[in-house]
């Protein structure tokens, strides 16, 4: 039961925790955090594509959420609300980095460090999938993005995304027993 709590916590229960947290119930933050951490992290990661920066921005996102929580009116959309904060935080960080880092250094970073990070990330998570398949699968299964939204974000035809998603699931199905073990 504990292992599925995050992914299966429904919006009503999440709203209850948010309401209690707004009233100063410190312990409810743990539930809110556990219910949203994957949404927050992967929303950021697929903007910045940098593991270390994503971790820093994840913390910033939760602090911004706390800062603005007074204005959150609670209409069952908390998960969408915090994902919006996460995305905005990530986009601002990219802009900031572009201002601060000369373009050649950025390119160097992308070609070396980020590639290494991506490689490690691929090895650890959903091992059987390629980088693009993994992104499609996580965007759809974790972030609940539609295939259409993913197609727009990755600039690919909708049919390609649908096909790649199905193929990725097939690959994982084949490896299913081993991965679950």
């Amino acid at each position: 039961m504990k292992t599925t709590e995050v992914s299966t916590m429904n919006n009503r229960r999440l709203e209850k925790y948010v309401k209690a947290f707004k009233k100063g119930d410190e312990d409810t933050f743990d539930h809110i955090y556990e219910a949203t951490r994957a949404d927050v992290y992967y929303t950021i990661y697929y903007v910045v594509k940098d593991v270390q920066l994503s971790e820093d921005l994840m913390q910033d996102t939760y602090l911004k959420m706390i800062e603005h929580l007074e204005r959150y009116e609670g209409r069952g959309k908390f998960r969408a609300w915090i994902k919006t904060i996460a995305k905005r935080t990530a986009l601002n960080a990219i802009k900031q980095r572009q201002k601060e880092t000369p373009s050649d250094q950025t390119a160097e970073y992308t070609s070396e460090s980020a590639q290494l990070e991506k490689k490690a990330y691929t090895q650890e998570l959903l091992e059987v999938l390629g980088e693009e398949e993994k992104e499609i699968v996580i965007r759809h299964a974790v972030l609940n993005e539609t295939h259409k939204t993913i197609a727009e974000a990755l600039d690919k035809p909708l049919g390609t995304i649908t096909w790649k998603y199905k193929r990725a699931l097939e690959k994982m199905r084949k490896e299913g027993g081993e991965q679950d073990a």
Partner: protein
Amino acid sequence: MREKDMKRHIRRKAKAHTPDVKDSVKASPQFRAFIERSAHREKRRRRPVYALAFTSLVAVLLLALFIIPSETSYSQVYLEINPSIRLDVDEEDTVLALKGENDDGDAFIEHIDDIEGGDFDTAIERIIENAIETGHLSEDAPHILYDAVSDDEALAGRHTQHLEQRIPEVAQERIPDIDMMRGHQGRPEADVIDRAQDHDIGVMRVRLIDAILEETDDYTFEELADYSVGELRDVMDAIDMESPMPGPPDSVPGPGGP
């Protein structure tokens, strides 16, 4: 592995690879300041509320003693078509409230206006028609759990019969073999309501899952909570299980049922 199981697997894997920043957030000065500020504000907010609550309680007691002649009966009518919804219907057959019992139920009733204050018959018609339009009910998915509960047993019985008669009538043209299973056997207990909320399903589905688990050890509650009513029906077929409650006389008989 079914797609739902795959998605669960992916979410579990994805979450396991998420960095944990909870402790650093909680240790931040912003977090501490927020908690202190919120707790202080809540304390101040409560004082007048207590006084108001006491005054209101006295007023309600006086009303109950001297003004209100008798209690109005109503029943709670539950419908589960994977979205789970509830109607409160009074003895005049007027719909007092329409509520979603889970997130899908909330989404489902967003598209149905002007039910509250209208009559029960029209409400059933519009709900079933909308369920067919949105594909929640179809020839491939003809399953529906239903029941009415009330302190007034006669009223609950009448509303149950009304469902049993009206739903097949409305659905008949497009779903001639609608499969109705009665779901409740009385008011749901607190633990049933808690589990329904935890798993974002209706209380009738919790009861049905409990009944299935009494018959077989092949599944867990968590697994079956992801199943639709139709999939639960398939499980019942597979283990040759009868419906826990008899459906309407002219419904499709349950596995091993009448």
